C-alpha cells in the first residue's frame, strides 16, 4: 500500500501525463513527459520509451531520459527478445540480474551506464503490443503491487494515444488517397472527352463509307466480309467512346427516394440469366429494415450490373456471388456488398481497377468500374475493395441517407 505522500506524487504524475495526452500536444512531447515523470517518481536513473514499428517489428526509440547517448542509440532491439509471451503483455517484467537476462542485449554497456536493475513495462492494447517503457534503476529495490499497477496504467495510456495517432494518420492517408484519385479521375475525364470527340469524326467517315460500300459489293464476296469487319469494329469503337463519354460526362444524378433493395432486385434480374447459364449462384441477403434513400435508380442499377458482371467474370463455373444490403442507422448510411469467391485481384492491380481502360479481359473496354466509380462519387458515396488472390473479392459501397430519421417519412 502506498503512503499518502507517495500516492499524491503518483497521482500528480498520472495527472500530468493524462493532461499532456488530452491537451493535444505532439506525441513526442507526451512521450518526453512520460519518461521524465515516470523516472522521477520512481527515483529511477532513467527511462526509455520504445515504439513497436508495425512494419519492421523492431522497437524504435520514442523518448529517453537520464541515459547516455551511447547507450540509448546502441543497436536495434529485436522484438522476439522483448515479447516473450502474450500473457506477459500487461505485466511488468523485473530484471535484477542484468548480466544473465536475455532481454538485456548489451549488459556491459548497461553496467558501465550504472544500471543495476531494469523494469520492462509493456505498452499494450488487448493482445496487441504497441511498445515498451523500460525503467532503469541504479540500485535494486522492491516495488509494491500498486507501484507496478501505476506503471502498467501509464503504459496503457501511452498505447492508447499511439493507437489514436495511428488511426488519425491512416484516416489522413485514406483522405489524401481519395483526393488524389478524384483529381486523377477528373483529369482523365476531361482528356477522355477530348479524345472521344476527335475520334468520332474520323469514325463517322469510316462508318459512312463502309456502310455505303457494303451495299454495292457482291454478297458473300471477300470484299463484303472485309467491310462487315470494318463496320463491326467501327461500331465497337463507337460503344467504347460512348462508355468513355459516360465516364467523362459529369452527369448529375436525378435522385428520387428509392428502396435500394428494389434497385438491387432489378439489377439482379437483368443479369440472372447470365449467372444461370454459367451455373453461378447469385445470393441476395437484403436488409429487412431498409429505409428509402435518394438515388438515381438508373445509375445505381448500371453500377450494380457492372459489379455483378465483373464478379461473374471472376468466378469459375459453379462459383458463388452474394449481394448484401445493410443499414447503418448510427452513421445514417446504407451499404451494399458484392462478394465473390473468384480469382481475386492482386494488391498491385487493386490500385488500377477504377482507372479507365484498365481491363484484364480480352473483350473488356475497361470502363465499367471507372463509370461505376463516377456514379458512386456523384451519389456522395464510397467504394472499398477487399481482395485476396485465389480467394475472392468484396466490393463495399456506402451512401448517405439524407433523411435523418431511419424508418421515418420519405424526405426530398
Amino acid at each position: 500500500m502506498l503512503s499518502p505522500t507517495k500516492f499524491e506524487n503518483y497521482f500528480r504524475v498520472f495527472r500530468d501525463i493524462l493532461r499532456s495526452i488530452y491537451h493535444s500536444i505532439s506525441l513526442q512531447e507526451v512521450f518526453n513527459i512520460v519518461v521524465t515523470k515516470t523516472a522521477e517518481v520512481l527515483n529511477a536513473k532513467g527511462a526509455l520509451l520504445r515504439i513497436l514499428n508495425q512494419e519492421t517489428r523492431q522497437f524504435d526509440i520514442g523518448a529517453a531520459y537520464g541515459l547516455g547517448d551511447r547507450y540509448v542509440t546502441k543497436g536495434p532491439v529485436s522484438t522476439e527478445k522483448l515479447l516473450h509471451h502474450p500473457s506477459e503483455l500487461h505485466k511488468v517484467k523485473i530484471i535484477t540480474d542484468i548480466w544473465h537476462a536475455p532481454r538485456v542485449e548489451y549488459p556491459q554497456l548497461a553496467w558501465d551506464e550504472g544500471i543495476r536493475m531494469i523494469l520492462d513495462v509493456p505498452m499494450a492494447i488487448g493482445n496487441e503490443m504497441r511498445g515498451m517503457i523500460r525503467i532503469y534503476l541504479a540500485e535494486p529495490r522492491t516495488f509494491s503491487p500498486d507501484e507496478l499497477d501505476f506503471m502498467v496504467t501509464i503504459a496503457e495510456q501511452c498505447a492508447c494515444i499511439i493507437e489514436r495517432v495511428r488511426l488519425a494518420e491512416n484516416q489522413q492517408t485514406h483522405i489524401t488517397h481519395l483526393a488524389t484519385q478524384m483529381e486523377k479521375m477528373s483529369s482523365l475525364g476531361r482528356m477522355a472527352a477530348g479524345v472521344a470527340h476527335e475520334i468520332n469524326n474520323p469514325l463517322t467517315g469510316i462508318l459512312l463509307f463502309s456502310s455505303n460500300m457494303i451495299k454495292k459489293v457482291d454478297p458473300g464476296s471477300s470484299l463484303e466480309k472485309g467491310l462487315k469487319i470494318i463496320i463491326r469494329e467501327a461500331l465497337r469503337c463507337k460503344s467504347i467512346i460512348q462508355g468513355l463519354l459516360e465516364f467523362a460526362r459529369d452527369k448529375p444524378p436525378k435522385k428520387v427516394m428509392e428502396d435500394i433493395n428494389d434497385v438491387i432486385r432489378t439489377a439482379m434480374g437483368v443479369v440472372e440469366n447470365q449467372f444461370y447459364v454459367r451455373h453461378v449462384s447469385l445470393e441476395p441477403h437484403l436488409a429487412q429494415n431498409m429505409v428509402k434513400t435518394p438515388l438515381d435508380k438508373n445509375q445505381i442499377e448500371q453500377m450494380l450490373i457492372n459489379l455483378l458482371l465483373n464478379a461473374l467474370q471472376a468466378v469459375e463455373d459453379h462459383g458463388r456471388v452474394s449481394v448484401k444490403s445493410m443499414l447503418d442507422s448510427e452513421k445514417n448510411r446504407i451499404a451494399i456488398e458484392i462478394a465473390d469467391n473468384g480469382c481475386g485481384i492482386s494488391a498491385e492491380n487493386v490500385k488500377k481497377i477504377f482507372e479507365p481502360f484498365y481491363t484484364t479481359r480480352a473483350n473488356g473496354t475497361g470502363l465499367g468500374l471507372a463509370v461505376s466509380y463516377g456514379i458512386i462519387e456523384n451519389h456522395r458515396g464510397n467504394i472499398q475493395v477487399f481482395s485476396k488472390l485465389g480467394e475472392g473479392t468484396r466490393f463495399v459501397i456506402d451512401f448517405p441517407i439524407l433523411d435523418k430519421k431511419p424508418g421515418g417519412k420519405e424526405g426530398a
Partner: protein
Amino acid sequence: MKPVSVLVIDDEQVICDACQLVLSEQGHAVTLTNTGADGLAAIRQGTYDVVLLDMKLPDIDGMEILNTVLKEKFEVCIIVMTGYSSISNAVEAIKKGASEYLAKPFTDDELLETIGKVCVDTGQQSTT
C-alpha cells in the same frame, strides 16, 4: 423519297465527302461547306431543304448558326450533328428549333432515315 437539296456544314472533309457520296447516290443535291461563315452565307444565298450542321466548327459555334437561321426565319430543316454524343447538347438544339440530331458516328442508313424523317415531318415529302 423525293430528292431534296442538302447543305452540309462540317469542317471534317471526310464527313463532307461521305455525306456527299451517300446522299448524291440517292438523287439528293448536295452542297458542302467547311466553315460556319461559308455555311451561313450558303443558307442566305441558296434554297436548301435540309442543313446538316456540325455543332463544333472552327469559326462559329453550331448553336449560334442555328440561332441565326431561326432568327432570320429561313425555311429549312436543321439536323445537328454532334460529336459529343451528348443528348443534352442535342436536346438544347431541338428545343431551340432544330428538326433532328445525328450522334456521330452514324451509318448511311441512319443519315438517310433522319433526312427522310425530317422531310416527312415538315411536309416536304407529302407528294410521294
